Structures are given as C-alpha cells and as structure tokens.
C-alpha cells in the first residue's frame, strides 16, 4: 500500500501542476497545447543545470536540497521565457493558437535532442554524478534514523523515500489555486478568458493578462516537467515525456478547468499510470499475490484508460462544459 501511494504521488503531483498550468493559460484566453513541449524544455534545462553545477563542484551531496530549489527556480524561469514564443504569437500576431502550440510541441523535443546530442554525444543527458534518489530523496540514513527500523505507516509513506520537490509542487498548486479564485489578479485573469471585451471595457489590460497567464503556464509546466523526470526518470532528460503533457491536458478537461477537480482527477489518473508502470509487481493487500497481474488485463489498457475516460466524459458533459468561453480566440478590440 505504501508503495502504491508513493508511486501514485510521484505521477499525480506533476500531473496536477501541469494541468493547473493549462488552466492558467486557458483561463486567460490562450489555448496552451504546448504543455508537453514546455515540460520537455523544463526537464532539459533542469537536468542541464544540475549537471553543470555538479561538474563545477559548486554543490555537494550535503547541500543537494538548495541545489534542487535553485534548479526549480531556473526551470520555472526557462519555461517563462519559452512561453513567450506562444504568447507573442497569439497575443501580438493573433496567430492560430492550435498551430502555434503544435509547432512548439515539435520545436521543443527537436531543440532539446539537438542540444543533448551536441553536449553529451548521445540521446540522454543525466546527472554528472550520483543518482536522483541519493541526492534528492528523503532518506533515513541521511537524517540519522535507523535504516532498518519501521517508523509506522505515516512517516514511512509520506516522509521517508519521498521527494521534497513533490511537496513544494503541492504547496505551489494550493497557493496558485487560491490566487486564481481569491485575488483581484485571479479575477481579472479569468475575466480575460471569459469575456475579454467586457474586461477591456472595465480597464483590464487583456494582453497583459494573457501574457501573465501564459507565462505562469509555461513556468509551471517546465517546473512540472523537471519534477517529473527527477522523480520518475532518475533525473535524466531524453527530449521525451511520453505524452505526459497531453495526459495533463486530459486532466484539465476532465477536471472541468477547476483546481479541486483537477487534484482529484490527477490522483485517479496517477493511480492508472502507476498501475500501468508497476502492475505486475503490485501487491495491494500484502498477501504475496499480485492480484492485478492475475487479472490478466494488459498494461496497455491501463495506459489508454485515462484518454478513453476523458473522451467519454467529454461526450456526456460537453453541453455544460466550463471551458473558458474566449479560450483560443485572439482578442480583437474591433470585434464585438
């Protein structure tokens, strides 16, 4: 059970953060299909930064946590810059946002793979020394606890062998959700995505709101991308996150663009993802039998389940969908 919960958290946390990234963009009126591309970009800059810092000797294993915090900041910044490509095209040039997003989804892996190949002469960029769990995970020995002793369900599940990065992401998720709903800025952002003309007539700068929304979106998805590879891929960038960004898009739609539903949905999809990744060795109730493996349902089924569910839910709820009304439509003052 501990294993299942920890694995689920590892998948669910980046998923909810990136889905929230999609929400920020769409609520400001920009459709961000490039979540996947921004993830890939963030994962690359994060791993590259760690790699360089380790090589330069600026950080040792003892202060790995400050390295992690700094890397997360760098990732968010790089994602912010990358997202300017989307906001500039869709706000200033009134480009087709779907095509722009698709272009960024193609650009990011190409650029990342090009650079990784130049830097590392192979398709993978990893940490310069050590591995992710040794550096960035909470470990019993490092904190002076007895490694063989069991400290009870809660510490074992939610403290030891977890990544602090995940908890930072959860905190960010909560703070940003509050900002989106309880502050003046959040209201203005949502107004720009719902009815930009009304917002504009009340003195809200729609272009600025859309730049901010997309910027936050880029920062969050890059950060999420880094946390994803940190926790699931041993902190190595490959120019590929296997459709995780599109899964986040599905979470956003399934969660009806609302943070709380998104958190629940990403837990659900996280469980599917976790089952798909480890179902043959998953012992749910600890009786030594691998129940899911004995059921004989293919791992592929669990992998495609989130997409199918999303389509089905969309079909039933499309009539009362909460999708922002102006998302995807370039704001044109002269059109009423």
């Amino acid at each position, binding site marked *: 059970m501990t294993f299942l919960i920890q694995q689920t958290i590892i998948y669910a946390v980046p998923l909810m953060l990136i889905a929230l990234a999609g929400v920020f963009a769409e609520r400001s009126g920009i459709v961000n299909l490039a979540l996947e591309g921004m993830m890939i970009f963030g994962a690359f800059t994060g791993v590259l930064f760690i790699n360089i810092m380790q090589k330069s000797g600026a950080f040792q294993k003892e202060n790995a946590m400050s390295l992690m915090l700094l890397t997360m900041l760098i990732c968010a910044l790089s994602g912010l810059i990358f997202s300017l490509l989307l906001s500039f*095209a869709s706000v200033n040039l009134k*480009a087709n946002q*779907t095509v722009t997003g698709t272009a960024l989804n193609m650009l990011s892996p190409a650029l990342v793979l090009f650079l990784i190949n130049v830097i590392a002469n192979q398709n993978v960029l990893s940490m310069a020394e050590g591995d992710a769990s040794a550096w960035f995970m909470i470990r019993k020995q490092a904190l002076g606890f007895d490694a063989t002793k069991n400290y009870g369900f809660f510490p074992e599940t939610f403290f030891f062998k977890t990544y602090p990065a995940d908890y930072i992401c959860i905190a960010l998720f909560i703070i940003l959700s509050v900002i989106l709903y309880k502050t003046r800025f959040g209201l203005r952002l949502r107004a720009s995505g719902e009815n930009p003309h009304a917002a504009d007539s009340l003195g809200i700068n729609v272009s600025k709101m859309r730049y901010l929304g997309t910027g936050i979106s880029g920062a969050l998805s890059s950060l999420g991308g880094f946390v994803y590879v940190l926790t699931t891929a041993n902190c190595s960038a490959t120019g590929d996150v296997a459709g995780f960004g599109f899964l986040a898009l599905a979470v956003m*739609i399934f969660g009806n663009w609302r943070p709380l539903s998104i958190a629940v949905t990403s837990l659900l999809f996280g469980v599917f993802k976790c089952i798909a990744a480890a179902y043959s060795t998953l012992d749910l109730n600890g009786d030594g039998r691998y129940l899911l493996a004995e059921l004989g349902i293919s791992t592929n089924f669990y992998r495609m389940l989130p997409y*199918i569910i*999303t389509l089905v839910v969309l079909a039933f709820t499309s009539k009362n969908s909460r999708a922002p009304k102006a998302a995807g439509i370039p704001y044109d003052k002269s059109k009423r």
Partner: protein
Amino acid sequence: MYNRRALSPLLKNEGMKSLSASLLSIFTGITVGCIIILLVAAFDEKITFSSGLEAVRLILFGIFSKGRDTAGNLIFGFGSNNIGDLLFRATPIIMTGLSVAFAFKTGLFNIGASGQYLTGTAATLIVALSLPEALPSFIRWLFAFLSGMTAGALWGTVPGFLKARFKINEVISCIMTNWIAANLVTWIFESSSFRNGSQSGKIGYIMPTSMKGISTAKLGLELLFPSSQVNAGIFVAVLFAIIVYVILFKTIFGFENRVCGSNAHAAEYAGINGKRKTVLSMAFAGALSGGGASLYWLSGNTEFFWSTYQALPQEGFNGIPVALLASNNPLGVIFTGCFMSSLEVAGQQIKDLTAYNEYITDIIIALIVYLSAFSFVIGQLVFARKKREREGEK
C-alpha cells in the same frame, strides 16, 4: 437548393499572398536553423567554425551531397540515390499532408493524423502478413492498402463523430485518439506472431512485408534512381493528390466542404449539412493518413517498431507543415512534401558527415510550422503597406 454562385465569394483565391507567406516562413526557418548551428560552433569548443559552415552548406544543399572526398572536403553533385530516398520519404508525408489539408479545407484541424497513421500501419501489416500466400502478391498488396485506408478512416471518424454529435473540439479528441491508438497498436502487436522472431535482435520489430513476398512495385524507378529506396508508392501519392484536388475543386461535395470551412454559418444557412460534412471529411482525412502508412510499410524494406506507446509517428505531425506551406492546396502538397523530405535527407547527411545531428532539421521544420501560424498575417501587413505606398505615389 442554394445558389452556388452566391456562396463563391467566400472562397476567393489568395494564392500569391499565401505563396509569399510560405516562402517567407521557409526562408526564416532555415535562416534561424543556420544561426543555431553557427552559435553552437561558436560556443562549443569541440566543434570548429568551419565544420559549422559545412553543416550550413549541407542544410542548404544536402540533397546534392555526395559525401567527402579523400582530402576530407565535402563534395556536391547530382546523386540519384538521394533523390530516390527523397521521393520515398516524401510518399507518406504527402499523404498525411493531404489528410491535414483536406480537413483544413472543411475547417477542421486534423492533429490526429499520427493516430490514423498508426491504425493504418497496424491494419496494413496484419492483413499483409496474414493473407494466404496462395493469393497473388498484387492482390494481397491491394487488400493491405485498402485495409490501411479503412482503418485510418475509422479512426478519423471518431473525432469527426464526436464533433458532430457532441460538439467536442476535434483537436482535443484527436489528441486523445492519438494516444489511444499508440497504446492500442502496442497492445495488438505485443503478443502477436507478427513480430520478427526469425532474425536475431529484431523481436522489437514487425516482420517486413517482403518476408511474405509483398513489396511495392518499382516500375523502373530502380533504374532511374539506383541504390535508393524509391518505389511506385510515390505515383500513388501523386495520384491521390490529384484525386483530392478534383474532389475539392471540381465536385459539389468538395465545394460544400470548402464552404463549411470558410463560413460554417453561411453553409448552414444555405442548407448544407455541416455535421455530415464533418464526419465525412474526417473519415476521408483519416483514410488518406492510413493510406500513407500503407504505402510506407508495404514498400517491403521498412520495419515497424511496434512498442510505440511512448511516441507518435513523426509522419503524422509532419503532415501539418506540409499542408500549411502548401496553403492546403492538394497539388501544392506534392511539392511541399518533397521539400520536407529533402530537409530530412539533408538531416541524415548532417548526421553522417558532421559533428552535428539530424535533429537540426526537425528544429527547422518546427520553426516553419511556428512561422506559418502567423506568416499569413505578416504577409497581409506587407501587402497592405505596399498597397498604401502605391496609392500614396498616385
């Protein structure tokens, strides 16, 4: 019945503007790609500046590259194998380009070409590898091709139906169906007997159709382009481009599609059934993508990596720039498809001959897509300014 002439002004031709916009995108994309190469040469001590310049030359003229001479200098010239490979690689992306272009003309963004391509791949390979060998190979080829198209059409129908019936945005449902297809195809092949177990180290691949005696006829192309992979599939792709052109511009069906794409409200007002058009258009687009997959895998010398659940085929996404650059004109797609594959060939040359890698051409392709998302706007601005200047002179 509506008056067709009354709807025609919706469809006025913007040929010149879109051509200049496409050329602008291509030019800018290649320029930025070259700048990236030179920047890397400037900052990376392993790569000299002259090797950066060589890579730039290969981007521009890679299709005429003939390797290096004994002194280590790049040599250029007409290489028939490169041209043949260009045509071979162009075949599937012309088809996916047609698929995207046809959907665009109906006002739909078919981002699901990858999924349709994958289901087409699966159907083609299964049929080609399981039909009894007693049948003549041409009949089996034809069956495999048709089943590829059918599978693609079915897969395209899903987003079309969801859009028509439930008003679900086709972009979202295409993304979902893409990844469903990626997992489904992996699932189908995972424990099948189609995997290539007879050659060592090839179990990750599906048997090439040539093992069952099926490979697309070459029709003398092997004499024209010796030691290349080209086959008659390119003729089929060109034929389909012409068919799509005729359907779009010479039939009522295509006319109605284009009206729906230009102004869905006007189309509905005129009595065109937009829902039916949406489903049919996506089905046809899917059939084209699936057919592209068939042409690629039936060549006999290609092997399908079946564990595809982590990545979607590039051919599907490359259909988008192919269609955009041709401004969705089916005949233009033939040329933009060849252009895209010439970039791919150049990328291969860069990988083989320099310290750089083939992903630089993917960067250029992505940049071109990015630019073509708004180049039309810029093109219009330039035209408007020129017009103002001309009027100012008067």
